């Protein structure tokens, strides 16, 4: 079933998203598993730097994300 984004202030349908198929989900899991092999080896400093960058993007895009 498609996922619907509805504005609760108006009831207006904003956007419809198609669900991933089970084959697509399986591919996503396999890719995540492959990504884990190197991510688990990554240094804390690298993970931390990426999260600090994430925090920066959140701050920069705050008003757009919030609305």
């Amino acid at each position, binding site marked *: 079933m498609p996922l619907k984004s509805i504005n609760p202030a108006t009831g207006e349908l904003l956007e419809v998203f198609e669900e991933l198929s089970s084959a697509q989900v399986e591919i996503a899991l396999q890719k995540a598993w492959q990504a884990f092999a190197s991510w688990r080896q990554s240094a804390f400093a690298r993970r931390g730097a990426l999260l600090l960058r994430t925090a920066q993007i*959140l701050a920069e895009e705050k008003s757009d994300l919030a609305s």
Partner: protein
Amino acid sequence: MSVEMGKPVMQAEAEIDKCATVCVHYAENAEKILLPENVVMDGGSSYVRFDPLGLILAVMPWNFPFWQVFRFAAPALMAGNVCLLKHSSNVPRCARRIADIFAKAGFPEHVFTELRIGSGPVESLIAHPLIAAVTLTGSEEAGRKIAELAGRNLKKVVLELGGSDPFIVLADAPMETCLPTAVNARMLNNGQSCIAAKRFIVEAKILDRFRSGFVAAIAKLKVGDPLDKSNDLGPLARADLVEELERQVKESVRLGARILTGGKALSDRPGFYFQPTVLGDVRPGMPAYDEELFGPVAALISAKDAEDAVRIANDTPFGLGASIWTKDCAQGEKMAARIEAGMVFINGLVRSDPRLPFGGIKNSGSGRELSHYGIKEFVNIKTVVIG
């Protein structure tokens, strides 16, 4: 966020700020928290290391659609796990934006993945051999399903479920801070928060005074377009939530509760609005006493004294947060020790903070998020002994 789930936009901005805070907190503290711990033994050497578990499936709700994802993802990623997000079906735009943010920040591909699926495929996902653990923030009903699936598949699970938090007002409560906090504690996020104060348990001696101040403040709240910063409340997130809340209010009134203000859905406009409401004379057997009210409806309950207030506070299947209002902090602390909840705030609003563990007991779930406890939920606490 506001246009998709109705949160007043200033609160949505505060939510984004909080997401940034949790990222910074774990970026700065995870390494320290996860340092191997030496254990002194007889001869040889031993230590404990904290290895990532692998692929963590997060089933997340719509009410804090950014915060709840970042609260889980920041520690999980710092611990070396890989995250798969199944977000609530009514916030697909938020889910897409979150995935975009992690990609833009430079995380390697597939370290954070948004799975655009409904709830149907969750059963086979939990059973999937590549999924190591599951975390759910959601309703009690969803918690039962996920816990059952996790149990059947022997997967680690953390559950943050509903709550019916007590807000205890003793006769000596500091009214000037207690009253405005009571309003906020119930009405933040249009009343749709697991840690919202839902049952206001007030010592009989002060009930009249608290009730008149509380009802007057709630009656003044402005309801309307969540993008208009002059409004205090927006709509509920979905039409069915209005229907359920209306049922709970009507049934409570049928059983003897009194509407002191509000009480109805706002049918004069499009959208899913409900009036900020206070119910008085709430007693056991009513939905307002026994169930979680996920919307802007406060239940007022009279207590004989502090002892009776603790009894009523614990007379619920839930055990998430609680707050106690009294000028006698020693009395508050004694009560806190006996309250069946994961978090007790004395003279303060129940809130989450990256430095404090967050979670509940009883039907409010198990496990903790945030602080050093939260990051250790999704690690393999591995003993290494060198003989």
